């Protein structure tokens, strides 16, 4: 049977539809999951069908995130669609000081299963305030789970797991530039439990560790590396930063001994550096070359296309990094 192929945006719609159907108490706060993209309209039918379970709050991020937390505490789950990731900064006191600690602080007695959905990263002309990448912050807020789907199937499976099965709060970061990408997605309901990375492409020469859009860029880079330089890289798609699948990374690093870590967050102190640190401390004995990081050049993201492209962790920069670790 041929695999069914749909777009990332369609996978979001399917995932949202599925969870709304399965849990009749589940609420949406906001619902424009696909942002200012060509795929913006994909949510329209769902917004119509489930209008009575979608709330459109005022521009009050800290309040509506807290409301979702309170509802979750008393058994009503919600998915909060916050639009641009930088808007979630307004709600950090609720996300980090409250949602993250509810479970631990109650000695395990209370749960706050909320999904905070944001669109992060360099979307194109978003400039400094609409291109933020806070995944590293949320990862380092103990108690929060952090999911970053790379494929349409990831999206469907991770959102479903977060919204219906997980007992904890999750920040799910999507990238606008993934929306029109296609991939195989099973028709029926399925979940991808957190902490399970997938190897998207096998290779012996080097490992590229990535999540979200950087997986797609890594796969493109892998093609170029193989075609032009005879380098076979393995691409590890993390799917979730927290929990992190250390074992899958370690297995690959053991095989290749050479690692590129890449993430669309600031290169100096963002997720790529953290991952490099984990590799250096837990997988050092497998390493045969410096770990190379490819991230956003650590400057406020600029508007003009020339500048924006320059700071983006593009395919060419991944190719160059992989060539460096492999040494050819």
């Amino acid at each position, binding site marked *: 049977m041929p695999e069914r192929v749909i777009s990332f945006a369609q996978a979001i719609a399917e995932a949202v539809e599925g969870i709304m159907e399965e849990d009749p*108490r589940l*609420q949406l706060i906001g619902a424009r999951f696909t942002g200012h993209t060509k795929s913006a309209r994909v949510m329209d039918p769902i917004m119509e069908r489930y209008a009575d379970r979608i*709330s459109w*709050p*005022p521009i*009050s991020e*800290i*309040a*509506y*995130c*807290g*409301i*979702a*937390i*309170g*509802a*979750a*505490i*008393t*058994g*009503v789950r919600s998915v909060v669609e916050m639009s641009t990731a930088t808007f979630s900064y307004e709600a950090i*006191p*609720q996300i980090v*000081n*409250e949602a993250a600690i*509810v*479970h*631990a*602080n*109650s*000695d*395990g*007695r*209370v*749960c*706050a*299963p909320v999904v905070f959905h944001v669109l992060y990263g360099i979307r194109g002309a978003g400039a400094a305030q609409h291109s933020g990448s806070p995944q590293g912050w949320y990862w380092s807020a*103990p*108690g929060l*789970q952090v999911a970053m789907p790379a494929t349409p199937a990831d999206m469907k499976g991770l959102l479903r797991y977060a919204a219906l099965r*997980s*007992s*904890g*709060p999750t920040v799910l970061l999507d990238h606008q530039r993934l929306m029109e990408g296609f991939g195989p997605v099973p028709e029926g309901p399925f979940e991808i439990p957190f902490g399970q990375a997938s190897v998207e492409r096998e290779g012996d020469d080097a490992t590229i560790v990535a999540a979200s859009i950087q997986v797609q860029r890594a796969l493109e880079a892998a093609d170029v590396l193989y075609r032009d330089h005879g380098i076979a890289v393995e691409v590890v798609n993390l799917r979730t930063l*927290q*929990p992190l699948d250390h074992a899958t990374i370690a297995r690959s690093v053991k095989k290749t001994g050479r690692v590129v870590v890449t993430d669309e967050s600031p290169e100096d102190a963002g997720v790529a550096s953290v991952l490099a640190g984990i590799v250096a401390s837990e997988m050092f004995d497998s390493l045969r070359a410096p770990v190379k990081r490819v991230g956003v050049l650590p400057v406020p993201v600029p508007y003009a296309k020339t500048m924006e492209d320059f700071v983006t962790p593009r395919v060419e920069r991944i190719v160059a990094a992989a060539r460096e670790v492999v040494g050819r």
Partner: protein
Amino acid sequence: MTSNERAATLLRGMLRIRRLEEKLIHLAEDKTLIRAHYHLYVGQEAAGTGACSALRRDDLVFTTHRNHGHVIAKGGDPFRVIAEIIGRRDGYLGGRGGTFHVAAPEIGIPHTSAIVGGSLPIAAGTAWAAKLGRSDRVTVVFFGDGVMEEGVFYETLNIAQLWRLPILFYMENNSVTPEERPGRGSPTSSHAAKALSDIPRAFGIDTTILDGTRVDRVARAVGGLVARLRAGEGPLFVESRTTRWPGNYGSFPRLPGGDTEIGWAWDQAAPVEEVREWHAKSDPILLWARECERAGTLSRDAIVTIDREVREEIEKAAAAALASPPPDPRAVLENAYA
């Protein structure tokens, strides 16, 4: 309940808070028991006790850094409250939360934030869930006047009113002079409104001003408000005014006049000068004891007996809490992620 029973219950409820917190000040002399600053509810007991007397067990309550009194008022076990505050295994949160976070999920206090304003939207969320589930549970969120300086307050008020949530915003304005307690309110150094109650009213929220030192009036008023919330008339707002107890300035509470003596209800000249006027005009417990005696609902003897019983209860609770072991450190690794 007869009016005598009611009088006794309210008195006992307030005394339980007072005696527990006085005990904490004594315990805090040992710096290994309470290792940092903490906040007491002394002087505000009538507010929490009166308001919670109008609630059912399954109603929800949210509180603040100044939470001990609310947890006791909602029915919290003094033993487990003290154990939490001194960081022991039998604390409500197994010693994880401590004084800043005392909560008691089993009696409707699921999560306590010590961040100014932190509880407000969460409380609106439990109210929203109740409304969605067509339940008549109400949520009461207690918070200080300082919360009105934080933006989250306004955002929450706005949504609560737009969505007509069954929530009572119970604001405890705890720095009001005795003379100003009944008045309209006056500007403070940290809020520009001529009266704080102008603010919820500007959002169209029905607002009641209460003398928060009068337990009976608080209980009756909140009873009426809660009935309106159950009937779908939320949100509602209360400004509850109390006068700061002299031991409650600075970061570390003191006992300038020693433990409160219940007899000061009739012997107003007895306390040392620093606290004399406060106990005479602003101590909700002594005010209530005096009122009950005058009204004949409680005799002096009955009052003294209740006080003795409560003191014994708290002594026992404290002893049990002190006997509770410190938590096993490794447990923290289990509950970090749900």
